[in-house]
């Protein structure tokens, strides 16, 4: 699992049936401080995430298993959960994204 920030939405009309009804989102991997960590990727969403949310996503075959339409599908990334807060102990809680960095409580939903 990795942390990511939803930065966009991908719309496909022509797609495999196993993706019917699933939302495809563009995710920018970030670290616990909100810094970019690698290239953006497309993941399907099972956690009702939206643009701007801090999320955690799974890559690899475990992502495909999260598809409610059945595991036999060509997905390699799935948004598993929406992050409410990232707590790093002694330091003030860290914000996952750049938009409102510095606020005392981290959060994904805006």
């Amino acid at each position, binding site marked *: 699992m990795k942390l990511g920030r939803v930065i966009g939405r991908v719309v496909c009309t022509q797609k495999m049936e196993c993706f019917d009804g699933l939302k495809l989102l563009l995710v920018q991997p970030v670290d616990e401080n909100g810094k970019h960590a690698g290239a953006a990727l497309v993941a399907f969403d099972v956690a009702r995430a939206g643009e701007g949310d801090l999320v*955690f996503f799974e890559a690899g*075959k*475990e992502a495909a298993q999260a598809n409610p339409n059945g595991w036999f599908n060509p997905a390699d990334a799935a948004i598993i*959960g929406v992050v409410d807060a990232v707590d*790093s102990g002694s330091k003030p809680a860290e914000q996952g994204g750049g938009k409102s960095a510095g606020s005392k409580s981290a959060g994904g939903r805006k």
Partner: protein
Amino acid sequence: MTLAKVVASVVSTEKHPHYRGHKILVVQPIDPEGNPKGRSLLAVDGVQAGIGDRVLVVDEGGSARAVIGDETAVTIRTAICGIVDSVDIEDIEDAGGAS
């Protein structure tokens, strides 16, 4: 398995049912000396680890599910399977000097 340090915990309400009831921690892989190595990742905690602990992380689905004791949680891939008390490293320079 890799050595890692727990750097943060993640709170999430809206998540896949497989992750319900599990603590999710941000772990930073480290080398034996404790220096950060590579990018941080999230792991499900199977051993009651906390922030600041040096831990063993397994990044493979079957092993991770064995660690958390739920073989049906097929979307879980990464888990913390041990808390490291100490790492003994052979001092290669000293060994060379003694011989």
